[in-house]
């Protein structure tokens, strides 16, 4: 059997007889000898080896057919998807004044009304039933979602029993700044379906307080850390942080400070830092220009790899690399803004030309065109790309902020060319010992 089109093969330093195999189609990872690989390539491999690699989708009957089938991969995911996953923007109020916030001037007092919340529940239940879904997952955003605890409770108290009466599971997550995350609130929300909270800390206190202060200018670092200490074990907490070209080297110190303050790596479901996205739209803070608007920047490759290793070496869980389709490509995933307008990305709310419909009338007719669904199919470079299953045209939000439109793909080839092999070697060293 020939090798899969979606297979990357890397040598191993210090083990010249070994090769590392990674399937971009499944995220599968294996090690074979150079001799075994040569046998596969000249079709003389043992049936056992062939069977093992076939099970991993690393060898296939027909690579051309495999490539053709990849063209329908997202449709297949949509047929198989048991979930209805919806990001809900509860309102635009926030008690922070983060300098790089993508919501920028959209922030303010606007918030979801009772009538909109009631209709949201009706809309979600109808869509859940019609799609014969098994799980409803809401990701609550703001502003700061914990400024809207009563709205979360209002929605959860309606949706949880209704979904369970349909034989389904209801759960939700929060993307919170952490300043209002206290045990009594978490315990109340856990009883209603809260699974995890993503909290952002931008490195050590001084850096974090510069980038993520309260609206009145006070630092927020200490309050967040105290809250996380108090909430350990009550629900899953995902640690996040946003870095720039100037400050990424400070971030490992955060992990050490957290350890000194009494956290164990296992207190966090995962840890991951990201480059700040440069926002260039009409809502952006014009005073902030330190963001990243391209995966091609060498500093992003180097910084992301270095931080990944620092996180993993300290025993924190770093998510593995698997195909991970974007909300735009998933039919039963979308964002509902506080006014009931539907979008296909949390980072592009407020752009009325990208509105896909609303919770009264449902999804409109033209949204696929507006969001350039399947734009990668028009690109020969994408259709032939070994990284296609990990990318599918990249991030629409980044393309939009960089180019002013999302008609062209946000190619991640240079990112993966530069980082995939070192990432796998990190995994081999740290994750697999």
């Amino acid at each position: 059997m020939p090798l899969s089109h979606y297979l990357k093969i890397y040598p191993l330093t210090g083990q010249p007889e070994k090769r590392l195999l990674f399937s971009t189609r499944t995220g599968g990872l294996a090690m074979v000898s150079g001799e075994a690989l040569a046998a596969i390539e000249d079709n003389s491999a043992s049936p056992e080896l062939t069977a093992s690699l076939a099970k991993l989708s690393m060898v296939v009957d027909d690579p051309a057919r495999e490539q053709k089938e990849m063209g329908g991969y997202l449709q297949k995911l949509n047929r198989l998807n048991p979930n209805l996953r919806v990001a809900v923007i509860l309102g635009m109020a926030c008690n922070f004044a983060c300098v790089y916030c993508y919501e920028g001037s959209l922030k303010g007092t606007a918030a979801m009304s009772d009538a909109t919340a009631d209709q949201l529940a009706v809309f979600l239940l109808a869509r859940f039933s019609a799609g014969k879904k098994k799980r409803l997952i809401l990701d609550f955003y703001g502003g700061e979602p914990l400024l809207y605890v009563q709205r979360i409770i209002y929605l959860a108290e309606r949706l949880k029993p209704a979904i369970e009466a349909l034989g389904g599971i209801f759960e939700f997550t929060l993307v919170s700044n952490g300043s209002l995350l206290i045990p009594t609130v978490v315990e109340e929300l856990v009883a209603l379906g809260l699974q995890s909270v993503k909290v952002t800390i931008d490195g050590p206190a001084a850096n974090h307080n510069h980038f993520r202060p309260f609206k009145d200018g006070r630092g927020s670092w200490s309050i967040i850390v105290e809250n996380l200490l108090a909430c350990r074990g009550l629900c899953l907490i995902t640690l996040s942080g946003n870095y720039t070209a100037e400050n990424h080297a400070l971030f490992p110190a955060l992990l050490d400070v957290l350890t000194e303050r009494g956290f164990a790596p296992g207190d966090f479901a995962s840890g991951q830092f990201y480059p700040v996205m440069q926002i260039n739209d009409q809502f952006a803070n014009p005073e902030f220009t330190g963001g990243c608007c391209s995966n091609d920047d060498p500093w992003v490759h180097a910084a992301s790899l270095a931080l990944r290793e620092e996180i993993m070496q300290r025993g924190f869980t770093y998510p593995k690399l698997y195909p991970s389709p974007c909300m735009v490509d998933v039919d039963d995933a979308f964002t509902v803004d506080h006014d009931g307008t539907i979008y296909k990305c949390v980072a592009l709310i407020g752009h009325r030309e990208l509105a896909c419909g609303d919770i009264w009338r449902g999804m409109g007719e033209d949204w696929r065109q507006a969001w350039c669904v399947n734009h990668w199919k028009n690109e020969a470079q994408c259709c032939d790309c070994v990284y296609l299953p990990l990318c599918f045209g990249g991030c629409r939000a980044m393309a939009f902020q960089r180019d002013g439109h999302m008609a062209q793909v946000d190619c991640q080839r240079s990112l993966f060319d530069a980082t995939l092999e070192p990432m796998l070697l990190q995994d081999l060293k740290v994750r697999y010992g």
Partner: protein
Amino acid sequence: MDVEKNEEVVVLDCGKEPEEVAVEAACCVGRPSAASSGSIDR
């Protein structure tokens, strides 16, 4: 983790078939590439 060993191949991760990918799809909270594509964060 190490889920399968024989003389010729060491399987470190079996990967995910579409059925498993579908269950986890559409969560922007931590897309697991090295740099991701920037942060969907505020």
